[in-house]
């Protein structure tokens, strides 16, 4: 992870990196030793002075709370890659140069998902600290090479009863898929993942849980399908665990505490009351074992300008904590403006120019957000245009046509999926 200079700070010339004191010896040392040790330093300084050295610190030009970097594949700039701030609608697409930029983010830990179609994926955790002026620092992530994406194949094993249709969640990426017995999670980046599952008997309402399965996708496994050992379901108990999350507002005048938070269990029961944030803005909600869906919405006054982040699924086990990360409220203007940030004309190609750090006459390429599930991973349905039953979910779902596979997929109302990383297939807001 790149660590940046505080905005406005003067970058040190290269020789300043060699602390002058390093070449001084204590007074008690013989003078000849001082001369002997100072000589190489002088020669080094001369060597540097003779070079036409130019040091351009990429962090120097960052704004407070700005996160920028360059998506690459095999070292070459990767244009058109989707980048999503996990837990938000703050999505963008890498420019022709591979460059991307997020602005302004508050101090804290943020997770970025980078994806190109079905083939490449990367998850990045970025810490933004406070600078000495009390402002969040900017971070230049440098080149971020996207490895080939993997697929996790998950099967649920129901012994001695138990429904085997429901939801499988990867806590690390936040990806959740609904299905029957066998699941697949595509677009999984290299790294550590934590897989949990929950199912529900639609007749009895009984709930089963499984996991966690701590899975590591090694670099050598990129681009492959990794099959998990079957996850054994067990009946959910009344033991409690925590749903942990935080709401952050990037909207002037909108306090995070004013956001509306709704938590619904897989049986359809609303969790009430949802406790407010602690002094750090974190929320811990204690609930019984099972699957839960968490939704964060802006207050009605902001509904037109601030989109609600996609709802997220959590599977809770007794004594465990499921970390949903941060839900962000970001106004559409900020999302659009960040997409236009540039450092040169090449960032605005084709056709645009970079004027005062903003792309003019430039339209970002179309790409589905990196946080969207793949349509292939969702259950199929027979009749596009009609209602369907998404297993393990209490939200009404709609059968929509996947134009790539030409099959119907069951998508929860007001949600979406992507068949190829570019097209977005959305379900209408069902009544």
């Amino acid at each position, binding site marked *: 992870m790149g660590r940046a200079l505080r905005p406005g700070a003067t970058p040190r010339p290269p020789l300043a990196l060699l602390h002058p004191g390093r070449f001084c010896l204590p007074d008690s040392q013989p003078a000849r030793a001082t001369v002997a040790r100072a000589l190489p330093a002088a020669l080094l300084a001369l060597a540097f002075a003779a070079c036409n050295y130019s040091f351009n610190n990429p962090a120097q030009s960052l704004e407070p709370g700005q996160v920028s970097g360059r998506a690459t594949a095999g070292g070459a700039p990767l244009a058109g890659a989707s980048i999503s701030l996990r837990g938000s609608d703050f999505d963008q697409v890498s420019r022709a140069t591979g460059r991307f930029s997020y602005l302004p983010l508050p101090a804290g830990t943020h997770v970025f998902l980078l994806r190109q179609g079905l083939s490449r994926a990367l998850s990045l955790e970025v810490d933004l600290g406070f600078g000495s002026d009390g402002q969040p620092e900017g971070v230049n992530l440098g080149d971020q090479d996207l490895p080939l994406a993997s697929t996790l194949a998950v099967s649920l094993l129901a012994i001695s009863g138990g429904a085997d249709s429901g939801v499988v969640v990867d806590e690390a990426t936040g990806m959740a898929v609904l299905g029957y017995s066998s699941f697949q999670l595509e677009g999984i980046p290299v790294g550590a993942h*934590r897989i949990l599952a929950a199912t529900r008997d639609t007749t009895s309402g009984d709930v089963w849980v499984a996991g966690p399965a701590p899975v590591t996708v090694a670099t050598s496994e990129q681009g492959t399908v990794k099959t998990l050992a079957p996850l054994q379901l067990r009946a959910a108990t009344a033991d409690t665990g925590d749903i942990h999350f935080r709401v952050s507002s990037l909207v002037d005048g909108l306090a995070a505490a004013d956001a509306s938070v709704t938590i619904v269990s897989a049986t359809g029961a609303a969790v009430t009351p949802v406790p407010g944030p602690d002094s750090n803005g974190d929320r811990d909600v204690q609930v019984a074992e099972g699957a839960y869906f968490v939704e964060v919405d802006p207050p009605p006054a902001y509904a037109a300008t601030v989109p609600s982040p996609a709802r997220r699924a959590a599977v809770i086990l007794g004594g465990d904590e499921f970390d949903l990360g941060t839900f962000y409220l970001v106004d559409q203007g900020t999302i659009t403006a960040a997409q236009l940030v540039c450092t040169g004309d090449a960032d605005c190609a084709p056709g645009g120019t970079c004027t005062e750090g903003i792309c003019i006459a430039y339209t970002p390429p179309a790409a589905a957000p990196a946080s969207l599930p793949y349509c292939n991973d969702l259950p199929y349905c027979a009749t596009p245009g009609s209602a369907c039953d998404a297993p393990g979910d209490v939200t009404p779902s709609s059968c929509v046509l996947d134009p790539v596979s030409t099959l119907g997929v069951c998508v929860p109302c007001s949600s979406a999926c992507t068949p190829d990383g570019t097209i977005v297939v959305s379900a209408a807001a069902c009544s």
Partner: protein
Amino acid sequence: MVAGGHRVVAAVGLWIAATALTSCPYSFTNPVDGLGVGQISGRTVADPLATGQASPVGGISVSLKGSTFDQVTHDTGYFTLIPLPAGEHTLLFRQGTNLSLVRHVEVGLGPNGQPDGVSLGDVLVPFAGSVAGTTSDYNSGVVVDETSGLTADVSSGRFRLDAMSLGDHLFKVGEVNTSTAGEWVGGPVGISLGSDAQAAVTELGVIPVHEVTPSTGTVRFRAVSLLPALAPSDILVTVSEVLRGPLAPAPAPAADGQVEVALAEGIYLVAIAPPSAQAGEVSAPPAATAVVIAGQVADLGSLYLVPPGLPAAAQLLCQVAADCLPGGTCSAGSCLNWSPPAVAPARTPLCQLRLDYCGAGQACTTADGLAGQCSAVSTGPYQTCVPCGTDCTADGIDLYVGGC
């Protein structure tokens, strides 16, 4: 050289340090001091919720491989096996089907000629993985992991072993066609499961099998008696080939219990038993499966005869009151009013969950044509037919006995 004033300061410092030490209620307890002869004990720690933090975990099955000596760790994670003779022993740890560990322990002889006690300290039981593969034909039979001694069915050339510990494994395959009296063997295939293999299925690929030949391999094991009055050389050994039946004469253990026998290629079941005079005094382990391949050694490790009361007595050993929770107390090193949690032994093979159409408790025929008893293990609406004379567990907790 230290000046005189410095010497005084140093002396005063030493005096202060000595005074401070003697005034401290300092106590050092060497965990090995409290061990009995040939005792292996330790504390299981694990991270079952994958939070990155391991802590003592109870309810983990501990089995001495090749025996009926099974334990369950106390709530504190504490476990004890006693008394074991000098030599190498293999402990199997398992919780459900998620956590698994194979641990080899060497018990040495102390200066008094008695087996030393071994304190394993904290034993981290990591997440398990699965290993799957296919054979080069479509027959049925058995796959053996010589490291853990666990077996699984090969059905139509396909197998999967669940709850495999990370680390090294050695697999061999034996297949049988009873109608044609054909027999095939394959392997060995050695793999090492790294941390990337946890919670995942590692594919071995295709294991070539060949029809058995008269060429010989070796079966090696050590017959061990935990009954002092029963010498290893008096232990009875039976070696049966799956198609040809028991071998005659049966091999006899050496004075130290070692048995090494050359056998033609095939699938063998190796059993040990006490002489008739001591028949009721010890429990014999289930027969071990050995796949013999020409020029290879099938190492079964140790097979133990265990006095029936010994595991139960060892299970009650405690160090502190917390070892006997919930409800019990630790008195004179033994738990009172405490029952260990019921879980399947760590040596129990996992039930092969198939779509056997049978009624729970009734006689049935397995998919491989073996007589069995229909267990309550079910996947969805189907029951599982457990072959007669074998035990299995589906979830690592409940034990299903193919009693027939």
